[in-house]
């Protein structure tokens, strides 16, 4: 494939991401928003493939599309009250909000294009082929501590969710149950 084809495919995915993300925000129907999100996640995964990050692309699809989005859809469909309700999509303070957003965007884009000195890896050290193996090794050696602590984050999130969602219990006092 030549670079023109690459470019066309890239912009196609970029358009899908922006368009579906806009649908997520604008749509008043939560189901439509959820399906919009599906396309956004897929588009972002495709961009990861372009960046040679195949592991992150697959993770993106497995975790976000396969896990979170399906959960979201099940949650919405099982609670029938939400499906009918209109989402509030009106914008508060549009002018100041737009000004701040655009100025931050302009600042970031200007920096990225003109003032950034991105650190780049020399060509001979660049990875060839899959990156899964180096990621796995790094996770279990250099980054083993953060990797293990993530399990504590997940555990406290589970504990908290179980506490908030569980049925009522009797309170214990000093005298016993």
């Amino acid at each position, binding site marked *: 494939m030549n670079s023109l084809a690459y470019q066309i495919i890239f912009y196609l995915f970029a358009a899908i991401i922006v368009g579906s993300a806009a649908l997520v925000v604008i749509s008043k129907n939560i189901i439509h928003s959820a399906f919009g999100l599906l396309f956004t996640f897929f588009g972002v995964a495709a961009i990861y493939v372009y960046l040679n990050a195949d592991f992150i692309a697959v993770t993106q699809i497995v975790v976000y599309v396969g896990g979170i989005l399906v959960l979201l859809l099940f949650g919405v469909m099982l609670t029938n009250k939400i499906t009918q309700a209109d989402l509030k999509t009106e914008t508060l303070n549009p002018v100041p909000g737009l000004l701040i957003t655009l100025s931050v965007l302009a600042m970031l884009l200007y920096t990225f294009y003109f003032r*950034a*000195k991105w650190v780049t890896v020399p060509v001979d050290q660049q990875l060839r082929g899959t990156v899964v193996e180096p990621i796995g090794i790094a996770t279990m050696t250099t980054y083993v*501590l*953060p990797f293990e*602590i993530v399990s*504590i984050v997940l*555990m*406290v999130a589970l504990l908290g969710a179980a506490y908030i969602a569980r049925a009522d219990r009797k309170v214990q006092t000093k005298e016993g*149950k």
Partner: protein
Amino acid sequence: MLNDLLLTLPITIATVWVLVLILCEAFVHNANLTRWLTAIGFAGIIASIFLIPSPEGYAYGTMLRTGTFTNFSNFIFAVSGLLVVSISDKYLEEEEINFGEYYIILFISTIGMMLMGSAANLSVIFIGLETMSVALYTLAGMLRKDVRSNEAAMKYFLLGSFATGFFLYGIALIYGATGELALPRIAASLQTNGVSTLFWIGLSLLMIGFLFKVSAVPFHQWTPDVYEGSPTTAAAFMSTGSKAAAFSSLIIVLSNISIALPNNAVLQTAFAYIAVATMAVGNITALTQDNLKRMLAYSSIAHAGYMLVGIAAGSNEGYSGVLYYALIYTLMNVGAFGVIAVLERHRTLTNASDYAGLFKQHPLLAGLMAVFMFSLAGLPPFGGFVGKYKVFAAAVEADLTWLAIVGVLASVVSVYYYLRVVIFMFMRDPEPAPQANANATGSFALVAIAVIVFLMGIFPTEVLKLADNAMKVALK
């Protein structure tokens, strides 16, 4: 690996102990037992810090820092946890949420804080921050049937996640600009490659994340609603432990990076202006609050401002002043929230006017509250005065005399709303008096806090030496 576990003994103990707590709660279902075990866990952490202080160095590669700074900050978090546990049980019974989960989640939150206070790598700071925050979101929503508590948890969660987004984007841009996540190597990379605009933007986004956690203006709006809606004892924990954790992480990042920054004045000026805004907004808004929990929330914003003065000074003295301030603020603020928790009944009796004539009904409680209020106002001879003196003196030394003057003026304003409570307690006639809901451990903890606050005001030298020492080695 075994050596690393021993080097970071407080974190190792805490992680193992969490499993014990969870298994115990799962099989025994006894909140009082879990409470005592949690207290023992905190005591064990404190004991390990004193008995086996870790030597200077790194653990797990360059993931965690060990040494005096870490010992000092871990001590603050464990003390905060221990005190909050000891004032909690009666309040939880009164509010009918006396469940073991409360203590376990509080304990896990402390693990996050200890990771933040000993991190040497941005990824560890981020995960520590998340561990702490997720636990705090749950603590804010512990009163499941109370609308205000639900609101507090939801607000804290949404805004906190948003701030985390900024934090993470900042880390990503810093990685893009330097190619490193470990703080010492980031500094080295900046020294060899120079500081690019990209790095500055990354650093600013990172700072937004920190400033949200310490509730500095203009990222403070969540504070009053969350502290008022959360269970009072949980608010005591949020306002002290999590603030101390965010500040110690901030000190770690800044003390590592500032050597490599060619133009330190930019950072200094930015922090000075944020400190002024934080002190002004916190103190002036607190003047009009009648609800004591709200007032303490605004006062905690103001105190974040005083601590930011020390950060703005950017010197060893400033940072060690912030450490000392975080410790003394932990003590006196847990004390003040503790007194409120003793008197509160289902969201009533939290206004200053409810405290009218408290001295005649409960002289001890009124006396304790007066000590905490005087200390928060920064009046000598209490510990709060020494903390303020340290950070303001550091500002003067760093040629920020105007900032120190603003700080002193702000604390003069603060005297008004702290003393208002004292006047109500001692000089008004009693209304139908609130019933105190104290027990032995809670009252003992409150008295002990008051005594320590008093002692740290009269004999601050030893603790100050420890704080100075913590910074001296960390900045080397």
